[in-house]
């Protein structure tokens, strides 16, 4: 069970672009800075001309934890929560899960790529390791 985000006009593209296999991050059309979390104004230059940009979906694990505590009775543990730095969106981090490997295989600096998990109308960007050990 996952508590899903409530979609609105500002965050909808981020949470649904995975339907097309795309990771989209909001970007300023004037200064090209990225704006995440998405908002209707650029945090770098105050421009209101913003559009989501498809990024590669590749990144690096900045840090992580192995969660052992079941925060509700139905939660399967352990699992990895990680903060991923996106390769082509400077200063943007995504909190996510690292899937597709044992929890003890995860390390800071690991190269990862996005995969999407559909839940209702939301496509959650999860990540898997690019280099299997």
């Amino acid at each position: 069970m996952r508590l899903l985000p409530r979609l609105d006009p500002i965050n909808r593209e981020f949470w649904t672009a995975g339907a097309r296999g795309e990771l989209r991050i909001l970007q300023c059309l004037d200064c090209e800075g990225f704006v995440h979390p998405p908002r209707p104004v650029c945090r770098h230059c105050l421009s209101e001309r913003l559009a989501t940009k498809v990024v590669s979906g590749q990144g690096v694990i900045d840090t992580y934890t192995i969660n052992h505590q079941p925060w509700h009775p139905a939660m399967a543990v352990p699992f990895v929560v990680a903060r991923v730095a996106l390769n082509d969106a400077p200063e943007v981090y995504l909190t996510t899960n690292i899937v597709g490997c044992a929890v003890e295989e995860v390390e800071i600096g690991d190269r990862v790529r996005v995969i999407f998990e559909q839940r209702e109308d939301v496509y959650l960007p999860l990540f898997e390791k690019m280099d299997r050990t």
Partner: protein
Amino acid sequence: MTDRQDAYITGIGQSVIGRKLERHPLLLTVDAVKEALADAGLSMNQIDGVSTYPGRMPQMLGFSPVGADELVDALGIQARWYAGGGEISSQLGAVVAAVGAVLSGQARHIICFRTVYEAAAMARPQEYPVPHPDRADGMMQWMAPFNALSAAVWVAQYAMRHVKRYGLTREQLAQIALTGRAHAALNPRALVQEPLTMEEYLSSRMIAEPLCLYDCDRHSDASTVLIVSAGAALDEVSCQPVRIAAMAGSVDRHSWDQADWMASYATGRDLWARTDYKPADVDTVQLYDGFSFLALTWLEALGFCERGEAGHFIEGGRRICLNGELPLNTFGGQIGAGRLHGFGFAHEAVVQLRGQGGKRQIGGDPRVAVATSGGGPLATALLLARD
């Protein structure tokens, strides 16, 4: 010697600290207010301001059951100024706001309070229901879908970086909890009275690596009050006042995942930029330990050691024990005394600077202390001095 241009903490008060208390949270607040008034030698009609964090939260009454406006009305306070809100640089931000009010002449004596009722609320959900939203909004939308549901998970990721980058060990991190629990055993009001051993710590269950159960504070029911007074009004109090020598609070990214470093680091730097005191002048530190790692990073943020060095700094625990060079969390911290949520640190700093710590009193005529709250995306630091 006092200065009319400064603000002071005069009275301090605290209710019983318990779990699943029946006593109403407003009455716990009144208990703490009465103790603080008696301590300062003030009467209720001399109070003209109230400040709290985060204000009454109808959706999370256990987290914050009493608001500033309710207290004003309930106690018949003729308030010239009051404030309560969560959008401030963490819990002790309520004290920072009060200092601004007394220094600008808007009030003379302000009751600052933090009341928590989290243990009782969890035990009595029919009285204190928690919302179960069908979807996540705001900041939680970036965490909850990935089952990063607790601050333990968010803090753990910063802690893991210290483990991997700087070699922080579990034995080093344990010293925050072991020290807090040892000091709590000397504090009659502390929630937990039994010391913790390294063996118990190392064998406890993991919550989110590298944080184990004993790295987390314990929900409690309690109220803590600090009275902030104008220097110009000190002739009205009969206690030993403690001067607020410097304050800092900062937020860069109000986010648990977009900031490179936690807000404590900028806050510590700012604190020393606003005073002639140096870290070497500090006699004791009371550092927020909602999670042990936050207290550890406050030591780095405040310049007691270099970034990444706090694990070595507290290794073995001797440096931060009661007779060490920098006694830490002498009341037990939130890990030992209970989750008072920020205000307990400033309360204890005043206790120590006045020499009123009883069995937990540090030696050496302490004159300067640091108290902090928060440390993640939000952080506040107070430098307190007895003149």
